[in-house]
C-alpha cells in the first residue's frame, strides 16, 4: 500500500516445513530472552514508547529518496531501532513490525514468519547494536562510520540468511540465489546505511541525551560486541565463500542432513551446475550471478510498480 516491500519478506509456501520450524525455534528462543530482559529492565513507561517506536519504524520505511532510473532507496530500520532503543527492545520492535506486515498486509507469510523475524529483525538488530557498541567511547565521526558499516552489513546478513533458507528449502539454487540476493542487497544496503547514518547524526545533534550515557541505547551489555562481531564475520566470510564455492557449502549441508530432509519429492541440486556455453569457469558463476541480479531487480521493480499503482 504505502510502503515498498523488499524481497526479504518470504511468503508462505517458499520455505519447507523443516526450515520454517527451525527458524521459528531460533526466533522464539531469542525472543523469549528479549521478553524476559525487557520485562525486567523496563518500566511500564517503556511499553507505550516501544509501541510508538514500532509504528515509527513502519512509517520510516516509507521515507525514500530517488536514486536513479525510477528506483529509490529506503530503509528496513533494524540497525537504527537497536541503536536508539537498545538491542532487546529493538528486536521486539522489529518483531512487531514484521508481524504486522505479515498479518495485516500479507507481506511475508505466517508459517515462515519465524524466518522473516530472524532475517529482518533479530540479526539486523544484533549486528547494528554489536558494532555500534564496540565504538561507544569513540568520537562522533568514528561512531557514524561504524553505524554505516553496521547498517550495510545488517541488510547483507538478512539477504544471506534469506538465500540460505530458500536454498535449504529446495526453492532456489545456491549458485544463483546467493549472488543475486547479495548483489541487489549490496545496493539496497547502501541506502540503508546512508539513511541510518544521517538519522543518527540528526538525533545526536538535536537530542544527544537519547544516545548518551544513561540512555537505553548505552545500557546494552558489552557482550553484544562479540555477538555483532561474530555475525558480521560470518557474513563477510560466508558470502564470498558461498558465491565462489557453492559446492563446498552443499557438501556441508548434505553431511549435516539438511538437504532433502524436509523435501517430499526426490530432489537433488545438481552440484556442478554451470551454464553450458561457458563451461565450468569462474566466468560462468559470475554470469549466473548477473542473471540472478537482473531477476531480483525485476522483482523489486514489479513489486514497486504494483505498490505505486495501489497507493
Amino acid at each position: 500500500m504505502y510502503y515498498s516491500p523488499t524481497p526479504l519478506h518470504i511468503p508462505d509456501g517458499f520455505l519447507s516445513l523443516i526450515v520454517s520450524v527451525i527458524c521459528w525455534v531460533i526466533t522464539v528462543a531469542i525472543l523469549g530472552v528479549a521478553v524476559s530482559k525487557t520485562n525486567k529492565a523496563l518500566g511500564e513507561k517503556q511499553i507505550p514508547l516501544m509501541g510508538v517506536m514500532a509504528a515509527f519504524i513502519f512509517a520510516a520505511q516509507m521515507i525514500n529518496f530517488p536514486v536513479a532510473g525510477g528506483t529509490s532507496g529506503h530503509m528496513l530500520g533494524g540497525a537504527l531501532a537497536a541503536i536508539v532503543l537498545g538491542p532487546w527492545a529493538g528486536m521486539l520492535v522489529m518483531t512487531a513490525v514484521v508481524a504486522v506486515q505479515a498479518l495485516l498486509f500479507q507481506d511475508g507469510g505466517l508459517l515462515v514468519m519465524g524466518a522473516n523475524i530472524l532475517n529482518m529483525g533479530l540479526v539486523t538488530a544484533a549486528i547494528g547494536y554489536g558494532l555500534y557498541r564496540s565504538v561507544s567511547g569513540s568520537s562522533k565521526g568514528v561512531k557514524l562510520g561504524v553505524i554505516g558499516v553496521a547498517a550495510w552489513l545488517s541488510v547483507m546478513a538478512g539477504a544471506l540468511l534469506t538465500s540460505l533458507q530458500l536454498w535449504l528449502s529446495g526453492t532456489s539454487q545456491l549458485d544463483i540465489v546467493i549472488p543475486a540476493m547479495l548483489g541487489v542487497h549490496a545496493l539496497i544496503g547502501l541506502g540503508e546505511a546512508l539513511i541510518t547514518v544521517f538519522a543518527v547524526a540528526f538525533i545526536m545533534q538535536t537530542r544527544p541525551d537519547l544516545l548518551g550515557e544513561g540512555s537505553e541505547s548505552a545500557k546494552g551489555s558489552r557482550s553484544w560486541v562479540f555477538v555483532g562481531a561474530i555475525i558480521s564475520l560470518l557474513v563477510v566470510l560466508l558470502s564470498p565463500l558461498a558465491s565462489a564455492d557453492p559446492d563446498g557449502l552443499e557438501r556441508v549441508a548434505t553431511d549435516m542432513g539438511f538437504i532433502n530432509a524436509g523435501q517430499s519429492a526426490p530432489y537433488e541440486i545438481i552440484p556442478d551446475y554451470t551454464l553450458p556455453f561457458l563451461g565450468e569457469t569462474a566466468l560462468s558463476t559470475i554470469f549466473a550471478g548477473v542473471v540472478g541480479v537482473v531477476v531480483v531487480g525485476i522483482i523489486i521493480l514489479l513489486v514497486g510498480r504494483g505498490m505505486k499503482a495501489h497507493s
Partner: protein
Amino acid sequence: MHFDAFDRYHDKESFLHRLDPRVKVVVTIVFILSNALLPDGAWLAFLTAWLFLLLANHLSKLGLGYSLKRSIIALPFALIAITVLFSIPGNPLTTLRFITWDFTITDAGLLRFVSILIRSWLSVQMAILLVAVTRFPDIIHALEHLRVPAVLTTIIAFLYRYLFVLTDEVFRLLRARESRSAAAIGTRSGGGVFWRAKVAGNMAGQLFLRSYERSDRIYNAMIARGYAGHLYTLNPHEMKSRDYYVTAFAVLIIFLMQVIGRF
C-alpha cells in the same frame, strides 16, 4: 488520514465474522501448515484445499472471488523459485533458447515450481480472508490467548493504533520536501544521490524525535486515565459450542487433505 486507512477488515454480518477470533487464527495457521506438508504434485489435495477456501469465501459473504482478487501480491516472489524449472533432473520437456544458451525445462522441475506456487497462493488467500473477517484488535487478542507474550501483543496493538498517525506525519514530511524541491522542467532539483540520502536521513531522524516525544504525551495521557501497565478489553471472547464444532470440522477437512495428498 482516517484511523482505519490501513484496515483490511470488511464490516459484514456473516458466519465467519461471528466466529471466535482464536478459531479463525488457529484454522488459518493449520491450513497453511497443511499446505507446507503436502507433497509436490498432490493435485487432488490442492483442489480440496482450494474448495475449502471457496467455502470459506462463501461463508464470509464477501463473494467467492474475494481472496483471489487480492492474492496477486505474492506472485512477484515466484521469480525467486524459477531456477528449479531448469535445475531438477528429469525428463526434458522443452528447451528455451536465450541468445546462445539452452535452458531445458524438466518435468520434475515444472512439477516442483508449480507446486511451490500453488502452496503459496493457497496460503496467502487464507491469510487475506482472516484479516477481512476479523478486526485487527481481535486478532491481537486471540494471539494473547494463544500465549504470545503480553509485551509483544501490546507493542503490536500500539503499532496498529499509531500507524496511521505516524503515516500522516511521514506524509507531512514528504509533502514539505516536495514543496521545497521546485525545479525547472527537464532538470532535477537538489544535489546528488548523497545529498538526497542526507535529506531522507534527516527526515527519518526528525520523524524519530517527533514519535519519541509523542510517546511521552501518550504515556502521560494514559497515566491520567488510569494505566497501570496492562491493557484491558471489554470484549471477553468466549468460545461457544459452535466455535468448537467449526474447529473440529475444519481440522477434519484439513486432515482429509493430507490423507488425499499422500495416497
